[in-house]
Structures are given as structure tokens and as C-alpha cells.
């Protein structure tokens, strides 16, 4: 399952690395239109926003867990940092941001979203942009294999800082800073899209799933009805009693098939939205 996830992530990283940026540019495009008093258009960015949001409402944050290029970067950096620390430096455990800070840090992304949306809506976003601060732009140079800063000094520094964060906490950017993640977390995701945990069947005191969760969801308390869940499905593999499941996994008696079907659907959506290179 871990291998399948890595493979799906690799494919989406190569094929549609700009999807998360296009979707968030859709948000910006709406509020920039508001600031000018002009009519809202269904341009390709807004289409990307609606498409990915619709997919998330239907299937949960599968895009975040399996397809977002920036999330994949985070997973890769975290994995590499763990490898270096345990194998090379012979440390027992990877350096971690303490769990107790996680819920507070997760609130920052809503602030990031609010600041950007407000800046767009009152018409000061263009002034902000002249500082070339956007770390996603620098990331987009890298995915197009141009290893240049293009004058994005602040953006480069921010991206470097984010990568350091990614090395210290799994899905650092996604859960703490991503404004698109904030929107996905606020979307009403259909209850049947979430994983279910059969508590009656749990081993008493077992917290394996919560310990494994990259975004710090306390499954024994909150369950899965939580916008923070990025749908990575890591909890399902770690449960000793295979207690975490969903209707589609039960239906096909297989954990891989639902992932493959969703990946193919998302790829089709990407072609439709012209997000595929």
C-alpha cells in the first residue's frame, strides 16, 4: 500500500504538478474580480478550483493525500530526513515538532487563507506580489526543471524554510500553512467518503492509528469526521485488527482497487481541466 501510494504520487508529480496552484489561483481570480467590481468568469483557474473541490466533496481529500505535488514534496523531504537521521546519524528517532503544538499550528493555514483572500478582495494583492514572495512560484520553476530563482529571493528563502519544516514534521506545509488545504478542510465532505473505525473491536488502550496519523487526528476521540484528514490511509495499514475501513474497501475486499479507481478518475478530471502537461 505504501508503495502504491508512492507510485501514484510520483505519477501525479510528473503529470500535473501545477494543479494545486491553478486551483488556488482560482480563489485569487474570484476575489481579484470582486476587487475590480467585474463579473466572475469561469476561467481555467476557477474551473480547476471547482473541479478539485467537487472531487474532495465526493471522495474526501484524496487529492491532498495522493496527488498534490507539494504534498508529495513534503512526504519525500520527511522520508529523506528520517533516512539521514536514523541511518547516517544513527539517531533512534527523527526530530519532531511536539504533538501538543500541532492543533495550534494547524490554525495558521486559515490565517494564510484569510490574509490572501482579503488582500485580493481589497485590491492590494498586486502590490504584495512585487516582492516576489510566493514560494509556490519557486517550486514551479523546479518542477519545470529550471534551477533558477528568477529574482524570487524572498520566495526562495520561504521555500527553503518550508523544506526545513517538512524535514521536521510529516506534511508540515499541508496541515500548517496551505491555504488550499484550509479550503479543502472547510468543505463539506460527504460522510460516506470518510474512513470508519469500528471501536467495539479495538484492542483496549491501542492508539496505533492516532500515533501514525501525520496530521495528529486523535481517532479514539474525534473519529474521521474531521476536515484535517488528508486521506493518506496510513492508519488503515497500521491497525493490528484491520479495524479501519470504508464501504468501497469492504465492497471489493481490497484496499488497492479504490485507490487506483480514484487516481484514474482524478487523472481524467485533470485532463478535462487541462491541468495535465
Amino acid at each position, binding site marked *: 500500500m505504501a508503495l502504491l501510494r508512492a507510485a501514484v504520487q510520483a505519477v501525479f508529480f510528473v503529470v500535473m504538478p501545477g494543479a494545486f*496552484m*491553478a486551483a488556488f489561483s482560482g480563489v485569487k481570480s474570484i476575489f481579484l474580480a470582486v476587487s475590480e*467590481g467585474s*463579473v*466572475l468568469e469561469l476561467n481555467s*483557474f476557477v474551473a480547476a478550483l471547482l473541479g478539485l473541490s467537487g472531487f474532495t466533496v465526493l471522495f474526501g481529500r484524496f487529492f491532498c493525500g495522493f496527488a498534490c505535488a507539494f504534498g508529495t514534496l513534503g512526504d519525500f523531504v520527511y522520508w529523506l530526513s528520517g533516512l539521514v537521521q536514523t541511518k547516517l546519524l544513527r539517531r533512534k528517532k527523527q526530530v519532531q515538532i511536539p504533538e501538543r503544538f500541532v492543533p495550534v499550528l494547524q490554525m495558521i493555514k486559515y490565517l494564510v487563507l484569510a490574509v490572501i483572500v482579503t488582500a485580493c478582495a481589497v485590491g492590494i494583492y498586486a502590490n504584495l506580489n512585487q516582492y516576489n514572495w510566493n514560494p509556490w512560484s519557486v517550486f514551479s520553476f523546479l518542477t519545470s526543471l529550471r534551477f533558477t530563482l528568477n529574482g524570487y529571493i524572498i520566495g526562495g528563502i520561504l521555500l527553503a524554510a518550508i523544506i526545513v519544516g517538512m524535514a521536521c514534521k510529516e506534511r508540515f506545509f499541508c496541515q500548517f500553512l496551505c491555504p488550499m488545504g484550509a479550503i479543502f478542510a*472547510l468543505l463539506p465532505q*460527504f460522510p460516506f467518503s470518510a474512513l470508519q473505525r469500528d471501536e467495539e473491536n479495538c484492542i483496549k488502550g491501542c492508539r496505533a492509528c492516532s500515533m501514525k496519523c501525520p496530521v495528529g487526528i486523535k481517532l479514539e476521540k474525534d473519529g474521521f469526521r474531521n476536515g484535517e484528514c488528508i486521506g493518506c490511509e496510513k492508519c488503515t495499514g497500521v491497525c493490528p485488527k484491520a479495524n479501519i475501513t470504508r464501504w468501497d474497501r469492504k465492497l471489493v475486499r481490497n484496499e488497492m482497487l479504490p485507490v487506483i479507481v480514484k487516481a484514474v478518475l482524478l487523472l481524467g478530471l485533470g485532463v478535462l481541466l487541462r*491541468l495535465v502537461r
Partner: protein
Amino acid sequence: MKYPNFMMKLAALAAIVAVLGGYQSVASARAAAVAENEAAIEEVEAYNREIQLENARRQAVETYYEDGTYEGEGKGYGGPIRVSVTLEYDVITDIRVLSHDAEDPAYFSMAEALVQQVVSGQTTDVDAVSGATFSSKGILEAINNALDKAVKSEN
């Protein structure tokens, strides 16, 4: 209520969509009024341009650019963008995008709107499209590059 969290978020989303929908109807009504005015203004301006062009033809005024169609190239997000610019009596009458092979399609289609802005404003001094900065800059660079080639040699 069975799914309080879902219902709450659904209500919030519905509220946002309703607000944007309200905005949209106001903006549309305003845009329709503006479009009516602009159509009238454009009619007068087109007439003026024609007179100007006619005068220039008759008097053989010295122009800055040589008439004709010129190709130009600019650096976009993933590679070169090529355009052709047609000039007549220093007026940009047409711009066509010839190739943009290395641009991401969803991004490029956003930046392409700038071409119309350049023709109607007769200037390449227009703002890049937010989110498609590099495709935008590539298009403008390509147009400027074509214009540079069109400058008469004595200038």
C-alpha cells in the same frame, strides 16, 4: 441531526455561494450597462481611428514602425512563446500566438487574454495575469520583441 459537522460546513458553503451569486447578479447588471456605453464609445473611436488612418495614408505621414507583420519570441514559463504582430500606420491591428508548446495549458489560456488587452489598449504596458505570471510575461516579451523588429531603421 445526524451529521452536524457536514451540515454546518454545507450551510457555510451555501452561504458563500449565495453571497458570490448576489455579487454576480449586481456585477452582471453593471457590466451590461458599462458594455452599452463602451459599445457607443468604441464606435466613435473606431471611426476616429479610420479617419486618422485615412489622413495618414493621404498625407504619407512619417511613421515610427514599418507596416507589415512581424514575428517575435519571448520566454514563457516552460520555454519560448512566439507571436506575430501586424502593424499599419503605427496601429497594432492584429496579434496572433503562433506557438506555446512548453506552457501548461490551463495557465496559458489565462495569460492569452492579454493579447486582446494589448490590441485594444495599443500598449504592452498591461498587468500580468495573477497566477500565470510567467506565461503573461512571455507573451508581452514576444510582442515587444516583434515591435522592436518593426522599428524603421532610420529611427
